[in-house]
């Protein structure tokens, strides 16, 4: 942590860009969505407030799965 750096030289970060495989036959993202629903329901959040919480770009796929789950129950 001794040297000084500028914003530009951050590009030398090593990006590995591998997707680690999951367990065969499991949809991990759907399971993740389900787990978050259970957790936040336990805290008495409504469907709408849970969806609002997850409407951020990085986890949009989780939110899409949540919508699917809500629409089928």
């Amino acid at each position, binding site marked *: 942590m001794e040297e000084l750096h500028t914003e530009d030289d951050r590009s030398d970060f090593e990006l590995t860009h591998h997707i680690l495989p999951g367990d065969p036959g499991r949809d991990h993202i759907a399971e993740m969505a389900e787990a978050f629903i259970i*957790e936040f329901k336990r805290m008495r959040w409504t469907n709408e407030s849970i969806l609002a919480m997850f409407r951020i770009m990085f986890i949009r796929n989780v939110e899409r799965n949540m919508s699917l789950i809500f629409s089928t129950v």
Partner: protein
Amino acid sequence: MPKVYNWQLGREMDYPYEGKRSKRQFAAVFNINRCIACQTCTMACKSTWTYSKGQEAMWWNNVETKPYGGYPQHWDIKALELLGEQPGWDINGSSEEKPYGVYQGETLFEAAKTRATESGQQALGYLPTEKEWRSPNFYEDTAYSSIASRLGKMADGAVLPEHKAWFFYLQRICNHCSYPACLAACPRGAIYKRPEDGIVLIDQSQCRGYRKCVEQCPYKKPMFNPETRISEKCIACYPRVEGSDPLTEGEPMVTRCISACVGKIRLQGWIDDPKSPVYYLVREAKVALPLYPQFGTEPNVYYIPPRWAPRGYLRQMFGPGVVHAIDAYADPDHELLGVLQLFGATQRLVYGYSVKDDEVIGYGRKGQEVVRVPIEDPVFVRPEKHLNVT
């Protein structure tokens, strides 16, 4: 080298000092299933302890995206690589004293004895480069980043901004280990474990900045301050744990990162006190597990593993108790449901608890009630005529 008993390994192991347990051991449980990486804990810690010159890249609390990220970058991959492939646990013969069975492989201390004698390391370790410390969570949630696209490296990747890969968030502070590698590594004897609560501290007047603690702590939680040229680390907010914060008039409080958590994913307590809810979660319900117990430091921050992640990866990270932990957590009994309600319920440190039919009560240091929470929160719907809209 003296032998000490490590209950997470279910056996004795080598450690440079005689085993001497503290009177109480600081511990915490983090529920990964609830964390959305809002980083409120990170900022609560930062604004309390590491806002000075020289501490800019210092994050005693950080939340990283697993399996892709880490602070410092790839800290756990590098530690696991150093340790090498190990045979794991023999889960036959697990008992009260060895809840996960018996670890058959080498710890970082044992590996140092056989492999790193020339370097003089007490625990096998490495010193991260300066750039690996630069940013916590850097690009972790933008895995298909603009830089990768510009370099043409992500032509086949998923379209921004979606994650199609599994991931979870790992919340990290110092583990205040029972057998700290940082303490073992320090040639100055500047690191000590407090006998009253097991919190691990660096004596700033003794440290000379050799960075052996930074090198040999596998969790990479001691950090070098280039301004003062000595090392610093998470202090478990000890003034709050001691009860010297004026807010609670002498009553011990939980750490800043724990009290600030929006998602109520954290609970602090004592791992060696059977009355503590943390003891219940770790030693009785066995839903909370240590982080990389195979390193051998007996870490005291425990995690309820994420239900959705691949079991093999979780087993490597949290040991052989993963399947039981996930099964028990997915189908909680009444006591577990009650204890889960204590997470984030109060800033005061909960020493004991009792679970009733419809509520759970937390007790403080002197046995007085400090919090009472319904197990099933009632929902009140405001009548339409009283809606606060115009």
